């Protein structure tokens, strides 16, 4: 039997030694509750499973030239990440409850927290959350706890995939949502300031935002703090190789999706939600946190700390129900940042921006293709308006071998003709040229 160690003979021997019959083991389960034979196929061998799964993998196309983004990007992943994160001392361990035999995981978490702090210029980070969307939801509830208020201002330039998650989670909570409508591609200052008041717990914005536009929220943080509210910024960590940081803008809580830091796209997960905040709010933060301490001989070591916030101690009064983090994904991000270093990360971010700007030039030079937002700076993603429905054009380009971008009509009513195009360092000048030609042929 695969993965079951003991032989029939051993099982009989074990039962004899403890003086039990097989049926004694399940005597507490009423016989009528036993299920009959499961309607599941016979087990298959490793050789068969690999053949079948190779076939299934072959039904997925990864040949398309990828200009899809929307918060999830096709970045290059250095080989050392798989080699190191694939060490089973990391991946077959669990939450480091026993610190003496988990220093590998714990030191890595501490180093990861440090990396996130330096990337965002914040003071404290947690060990990670599920993904960028649930992290943003956790940031919101953290702001509600800190301020004791119940109003949230949420700009629609924040990733709509995250906004719908926040919406479903909040249905039973007494939260007053004020959605604001982006102002030509940027967070809407007028509407946000108009609604900002003494009941506001937080203003939530994103940088670069869902449309790829880059902003500086310094002005917003000043206004938000004047009202005693918090500024939550969701961000794209790889872009922080060059972009002004949320910390420098005065953000109180920073979250984001860490997939761009060495995680495969993997059809939607597992991903990595990161979260950082200011020192004074650390006890209000959800999730695991690793902290430094010493043993009796003064040797440095790391432990899970501030556990009194968490569900296994606080139960219904915990800061969150979260039990695990996404440790292995955080480890990948840590290794990625270690391999690239400050210069490498800056270079990757710059390549993304350069290639996106080149693609933007090439594509906006096409007849009847226009930039959606006027004179806005963008990082590696931008919105174009096409002459007809974007979804149709994208579908035709899929047939030509391009995942050309994402049709914004799916989330924005009046953006039927708009396409969101992402360009990473992996795209070549030639591929961008081919996309321009293919798109021109469809117009």
């Amino acid at each position: 039997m695969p993965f079951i160690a003991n032989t029939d003979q051993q099982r009989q021997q074990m039962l004899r030694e403890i003086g039990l019959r097989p049926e004694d083991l399940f005597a507490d389960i009423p016989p009528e509750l036993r299920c009959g034979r499961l309607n599941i196929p016979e087990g298959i061998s490793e050789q068969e499973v690999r053949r079948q799964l190779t076939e299934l993998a072959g039904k997925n196309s990864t040949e398309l030239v990828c200009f899809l983004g929307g918060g999830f990007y096709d970045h290059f992943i250095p080989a050392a990440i798989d080699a190191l994160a694939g060490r089973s001392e990391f991946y077959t361990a669990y939450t480091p409850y026993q610190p003496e035999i988990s220093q590998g995981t714990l030191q890595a978490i501490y180093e990861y927290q440090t990396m996130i702090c330096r990337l965002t210029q914040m003071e404290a980070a947690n060990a990670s959350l599920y993904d960028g969307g649930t992290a943003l939801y956790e940031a919101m509830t953290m702001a509600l706890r800190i301020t004791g208020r119940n109003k949230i201002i949420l700009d629609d330039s924040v990733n709509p995939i995250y906004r719908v998650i926040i919406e479903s989670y909040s249905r039973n909570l007494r939260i007053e949502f004020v959605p604001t409508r982006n102002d030509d591609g940027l967070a809407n200052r007028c509407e946000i300031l108009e609604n900002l008041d003494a009941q506001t717990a937080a203003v939530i914005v994103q940088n670069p935002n869902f449309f790829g536009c880059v902003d500086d929220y310094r002005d917003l943080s000043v206004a938000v703090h004047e009202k005693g509210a918090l500024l939550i910024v969701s961000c794209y960590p790889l872009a922080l190789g060059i972009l002004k940081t949320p910390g420098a803008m005065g953000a109180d809580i920073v979250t984001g999706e860490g997939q761009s830091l060495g995680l495969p796209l993997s059809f939607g997960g597992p991903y990595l939600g990161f979260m950082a905040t200011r020192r004074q709010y650390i006890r209000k933060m959800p999730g695991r946190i690793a902290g430094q301490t010493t043993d009796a001989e003064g040797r440095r070591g790391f432990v899970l700390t501030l556990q009194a916030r968490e569900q296994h101690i606080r139960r219904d009064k915990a800061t969150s129900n979260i039990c695990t983090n996404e440790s292995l994904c955080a480890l990948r991000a840590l290794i990625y940042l270690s391999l690239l270093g400050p210069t490498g990360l800056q270079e990757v971010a710059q390549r993304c921006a350069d290639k996106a700007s080149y693609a933007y030039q090439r594509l906006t030079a096409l007849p009847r293709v226009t930039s959606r937002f006027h004179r806005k700076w963008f990082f590696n993603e931008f919105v174009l308006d096409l002459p007809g429905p974007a979804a149709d054009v994208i579908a035709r380009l899929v047939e030509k071998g391009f995942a050309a971008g994402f049709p914004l009509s799916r989330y924005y009513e009046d953006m039927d003709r708009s396409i969101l195009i992402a360009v990473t360092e992996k795209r070549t000048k030639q591929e961008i040229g081919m996309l321009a030609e293919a798109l021109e042929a469809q117009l």
Partner: protein
Amino acid sequence: MKLLFEKSVPGRRGVRPCRSDVPTSIHINERLLRPKPPQLPELSELDVVRHFTELSRRNFGVDTNFYPLGSCTMKYNPKVSEIIGGYPGFADLHPLLPQLRMGGILTQGALQVLYETDLLLREITGMAAFTMQPLAGAHGELTGVMIISAYHRDRGSRRTTLLIPDSAHGTNPASASIAGYQVQAVPSDATGVMDVQALRRMLNDQVAGLMLTCPNTLGLFNPHIKEICRLVHEADGLVYYDGANLNAITGMVRPGDIGFDIVHINLHKTFATPHGGGGPGAGPVGVVERLADYLPVSLVVKRDDGTFALEYDRPKSIGYVAPFYGNFGVILRAYVYIRMLGREGLERVAANAVLNANYVKEKLKGHYDLPFAQACKHECVFSARRQMEQHLHAIDIAKALIDAGFHPPTVYFPTIVKESLMIEPTETESRETLDGFIEAMIEIARRAQTDPDSLRSAPRTTPVGRLDETAAARQINVAFPEVG
């Protein structure tokens, strides 16, 4: 051992990014840029490889040591699953692709994996429909509680309370509370399972449902479970099965047949996907027919022509709980495991997991206090009460086990047993391994009598000794300070 940041040498480079092959036409305005790059360590690739290899050697994992951590089901994680998880056809697949017209046809293999895993889990649990979206067990709980709430709201009632046994994992009350419910703890009876009489008294028209782990965290199956489901249903409540301990009944009993309405499964426990040092996991949620309409969007469906598609048109749905279709990489590994075990393998999971747990229980009960003596299911719970006479605690036994080369059991949980030691061996462990563990535990019990100080000073074989957790919480240091 030094931190990455202490190993940094200015100017040293690791992996080099690609060269630019495009002319740069647009430069982002300087006021939007950071003045200096982030202060990351500067290391060679070899520096990084040595660092993380050294870190990995400071961990116990299932591959290095027996890991009987109660309630965590630390079974063996097959290597083939890791290979398949890395197939480019899965790993490089963009999640937005099936949302493009003509894109769905290019993701049929991945959609089929999701669809078939759904069917397999239905059969294993006896539920009518599943969502694969929840990203962890606790996330599954939250999703389940949101479904409970949607169900009552749809029937025009606003119930305020969820009942949860006092032995439950902390995630249960936390999930219920986050979803807006008040929590009432149902006490356990003298035999260690939920007190049915107490439940009867607590049920009323404000109770939205009951969340239950079965077998419970003491490893005990509640023989009145069918009656419990009936009572809750009579009060118009729903019964939630916390699948944390599903391994104990896999292939033998199906929560759906007992009368549960909602189930979550920890794929990383029962279906052997790696725990990853604390995630990623996956927590699919199954429901009975009358609750299927409330499942999150999207769902993978099979069309008449045999192709797979994402269905979004679900007006009663609780909405989105994850960005896409769940932790696909984890679901894929669980799918591989279930296919390899097959029917005949699944049917033996519980029998073997339970035998291993009872074997450990019987062999150790002469040496440690056993608060509940009846046959346990997948895990057994001892108390260090007897060792307390020597002023020793559960933690001392745990630390001594480390020196013997074993990962300790879960200690101090469940809290309803004083000084608890919760042991879950799983079915993938051999008798020889269990015997080694039992021998070590007996030796520790003996030393508790003869040389208790040697336990108090354990562990001595690890890179660091017992760490000062009070100091960590008082002088908070959660990030290495920047220089300059």
